[in-house]
């Protein structure tokens, strides 16, 4: 990988799944970069294709009934063209993942020390003693208290927050360049969420890792991300840096999402604005803009043809025909 090249680069990635003999799109023509030590957040509702994107980057989609097209360059390698064994050596070493559900992501019958050390020993040629020492250091780094004693305990002795720390330790064990966090705090208590996010942020800074953060929590996005992709029904609707996205969102869907946040500091106690309707059934996607059926600003043109993602300003892309118009806020 040459200097300046992004750690992760997606070009025209499309993923579809087959069910009942029909290929249905889950993600369509997705392009974005994650630069060195950068945090990119992917935001969207359930089913918008966020997690599928993450799995496609790791090439962990079920092979039998899914297909990914386009280019995924991870650490300079074309992921979709690698042999399985080459891909295995990238997983964990070049990119590692943190999953949503820390309660079920650890093997219940193996000690956490063993599980972290296994990742280490698998990717690096180090002995058992060295791996154990390194494991201890990582556990202390993710701030698991009494790490030395807890090394030999089984996952059921750990709380959700502690397990997520262990998952982070496993993911960071081999110092990957890219960390993919798929809703890392969704399953945790609110108070624990903040601690885990702080930890992720600190470790990312320390290790100069890039972070692809998948979430539906805009609060998390605001505190963590450099750039944000907003996805809706498998397509990117808006891509901007975090300030622009929060202060000058242009896509009606982004605005609607921001309208759904409950703010405790708002003195005018603005009512929450739910988005009417539901995301489209991707078995029969609407012909035009996929958000058009729920969009209060939709024009006939929106329903006829999908708007392309186009640059509105430097580092600000929007897929909406009416992006330039000053639409009356809801």
């Amino acid at each position: 990988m040459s200097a300046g090249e992004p750690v992760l680069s997606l070009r025209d990635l499309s993923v579809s799944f087959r069910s009942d003999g029909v290929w249905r799109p889950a993600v369509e023509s997705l392009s974005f970069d994650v630069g060195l030590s950068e945090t990119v957040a992917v935001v969207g509702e359930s089913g918008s294709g966020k997690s599928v994107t993450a799995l496609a980057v790791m090439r962990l989609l079920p092979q039998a009934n899914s297909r990914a097209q386009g280019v995924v360059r991870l650490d300079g390698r074309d992921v979709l063209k690698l042999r399985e064994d080459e891909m295995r050596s990238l997983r964990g070493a070049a990119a590692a993942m943190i999953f949503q559900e820390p309660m079920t992501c650890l093997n219940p019958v193996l000690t956490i020390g063993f599980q972290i050390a296994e990742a280490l020993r698998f990717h690096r040629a180090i002995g058992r003693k060295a791996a154990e020492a390194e494991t201890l250091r990582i556990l202390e780094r993710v701030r698991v208290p009494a790490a030395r004693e807890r090394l030999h305990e089984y996952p059921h002795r750990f709380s959700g927050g502690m397990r997520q720390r262990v998952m982070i330790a496993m993911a960071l064990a081999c110092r990957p360049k890219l960390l993919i966090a798929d809703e890392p705090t969704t399953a945790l208590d609110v108070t624990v969420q903040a601690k885990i996010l702080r930890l992720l942020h600190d470790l990312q800074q320390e290790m100069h890792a890039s972070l692809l953060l998948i979430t539906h929590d805009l609060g998390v996005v605001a505190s963590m991300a450099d750039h944000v992709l907003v996805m809706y029904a498998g397509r990117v609707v808006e891509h901007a840096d975090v300030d622009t996205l929060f202060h000058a969102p242009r896509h009606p869907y982004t605005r609607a999402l921001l309208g759904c946040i409950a703010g405790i500091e708002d003195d005018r106690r603005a009512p929450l604005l739910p988005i009417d309707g539901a995301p489209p059934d991707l078995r029969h996607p609407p012909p035009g803009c996929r958000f058009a059926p729920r969009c209060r600003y939709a024009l006939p043109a929106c329903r006829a043809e999908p708007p392309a993602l186009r640059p509105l300003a430097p580092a600000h892309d929007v897929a909406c025909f009416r992006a330039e118009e000053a639409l009356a806020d809801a």
Partner: protein
Amino acid sequence: MTDLASVPLPPRRSALATLLRAFNANKIAWVGLVIIALLIFAAAFAPLLAPYDPLEQDVLDRLKPPTWDHLLGTDYYGRDTLSRLLYGARVSLVISVGATLIAMAAGAAIGMLAGWRGGRIDALIMQAMDMLLAFPSLILGLMLVAMLGPSMPNIIAAIALTSLPAFARIARAPTIALKGRDFIEAGRSLGFSDARILCGHILPNIFPEILVMGALWLANAIRTEASLAFIGLGLKPPTPTWGGMIREGFENILDSAWLAITPGVAVLVVVFAVNLLGDGLRDAIDPKLRNEA
């Protein structure tokens, strides 16, 4: 969040402690364990414990009822029954334990592979297993030994094959359940290969079940070995085997009943003990270890 470090933790329970607890709850399992321990001891030290050479014939002392010289009497050739029983325990143990271990290893591997791969491979493997299972184990063992010849490796292989399907089944179902679990996906995301996930992550999860199945099928293996020997498909005479002793004793059952009864009781007691042990093991892993893990 409760800081876990500040909460006093309950004392850590090892697998052994869990086992002991379950055995104490099911006290009769101890009986099984003690009998089996005695049997292993007797088999291991047979040359020291046996009062006579098990093959030594003494035509003057034929068909003697139990006396102080021959605690369990002598057979048609004047051989000491107790000595033959002790040496017979070796054969019985080696064959049944060997066959069960082979069936455990091969059956678990086959079952895990079937469950992991799924689809056509799974269907094919499990059909084959069902075919094996359809034969009563004695009939299948009899067929195989008759075809291959009654040597120790052949008898072990035949008995192993008859118990293979049970292990394949017990390994397959939990593999299917486990392969969709998040920690398997997490392992993949760390770059682990299928083989590593199967051996390092799935096997430790299903091992307790396989072990219990092994204990229960060990009793079956002992019985099958004795049955094969009884119908003349055991190790060739004069090697002492329990089944063979029952058969030889059978010929003189009217005047020297102890010759058939003592090895028969030995088989009975050992099968009973192994079953008790298996039950104890099952209790150990059934609900408790599950909650612990």
